[in-house]
């Protein structure tokens, strides 16, 4: 099947600024993931505006999905974030979306926005699920506030603070402006997304970089630490 290329970022709506934001963290790693770090920055920016508050729930608490769907229904505004798993939402996020089935088409569902981060260096990988999320908001008859996309999201939690300063500042700015103006500042979104797609000029440079040991250092250091570096190309299910 041909794959549609060059998908543009979606555009969120502007709403009356909400006073409270309910955030759902869809990272299967819960508190230990990169997604939570990013969502917290967004929430803190929102909360930095006097009179504004946020709460955050981890969707990896699978037994709480029913309770979370009630929290969703009663919320003033929603943000849902997750890491990209096989080009879409993690299985447990899809399970939560299914737990919202009774809210399909309901009047007065809260406005909803999203955050998708992936380990891929380009933002384009997340644009496909972004279109699903926009449609999900419409299925819920909820105002769609937009999707924050972040490439190169894996490893944020391991970075020294100064390496994340710009990203965190932008996320806080987005949260602050949501509280003040009721929409995602479109100027900050590309800063967070990073490279959308490598140009014909940069592509070959990136290709060469991928052949260097620096490119695989993140994985090699862990493989070596675990004593399995030599088995890194194992094919356990290959036919004998």
């Amino acid at each position: 099947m041909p794959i549609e290329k060059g998908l543009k970022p979606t555009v969120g709506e502007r709403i009356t600024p909400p006073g409270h934001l309910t955030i759902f963290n869809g990272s299967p790693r819960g508190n230990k993931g990169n997604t939570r770090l990013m969502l917290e920055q967004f929430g803190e920016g929102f909360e930095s505006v006097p009179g504004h508050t946020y709460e955050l729930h981890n969707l990896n608490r699978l037994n709480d999905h029913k309770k979370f769907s009630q929290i969703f229904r009663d919320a003033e505004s929603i943000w849902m974030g997750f890491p990209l798993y096989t080009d879409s939402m993690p299985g447990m996020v899809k399970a939560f979306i299914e737990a919202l089935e009774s809210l399909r088409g309901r009047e007065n569902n809260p406005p909803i926005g999203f955050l998708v981060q992936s380990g891929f260096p380009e933002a384009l990988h997340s644009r496909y699920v972004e279109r699903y999320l926009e449609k999900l908001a419409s299925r819920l008859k909820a105002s769609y506030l937009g999707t924050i996309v972040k490439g190169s999201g894996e490893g944020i939690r391991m970075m020294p603070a100064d390496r994340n300063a710009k990203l965190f500042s932008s996320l806080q700015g987005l949260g602050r402006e949501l509280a003040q103006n009721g929409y995602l500042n479109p100027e900050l979104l590309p800063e967070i997304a990073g490279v959308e797609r490598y140009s014909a000029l940069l592509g070959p440079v990136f290709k060469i970089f991928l052949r260097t040991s620096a490119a695989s250092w993140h994985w090699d250091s862990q493989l070596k630490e675990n004593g399995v570096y030599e088995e890194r190309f194992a094919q356990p299910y290959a036919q004998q």
Partner: protein
Amino acid sequence: MIITTLNGNPAPSNFDEYLAQLETRLEEKGQTVNHIALRDIDLSYCIGCFGCWVKTPGVCSSADESCEIRRAMIQSDFTLWAAPMNMGFPSALLKRALDKTIPLIHPYMVVDQGEAHHRKRYESYPRLGLLVEPELDTDANDLDIVTNIFSRIALNFKSRLEFSLTSDTPIEQLVNRIVEDLYPMCQSRKA
């Protein structure tokens, strides 16, 4: 041709019947079908630990039965992802299974079609197809969104999505699509 069908139907319904008839017709045409009913196997969620990439390369660290899915997929010529749609996307059960197939690829990245993608772990991967049962409100836009996403998944699995069809498709048409169109391609892949 060895065909694996991954049935992501979370509860018995007519979709199972459709799939069973499809599989019977494929077998009558001389194909070997390996059916996995995902709801009947012990399948935990991927928790993003990356143990399959850095601790036990190629093998999921959890002790569930997901190895059955990975083995069946990688040893097949063609794998059919099958599931009812729910909230505009194939079932959470199918998605849970898909998340558990990342041990089939490698953490290293390569450039493919001008984009970063994971390096392959195996020499060859099955051709892929998607079969969904529409919901009452499924429209062409939903199918377009899902088809694009599953084409991306196939690309990351070093393969391609050969078709994306609904269970409204006459079974014989689907059988022909798999046997007559794909069989020659799978044979040439082996050569």
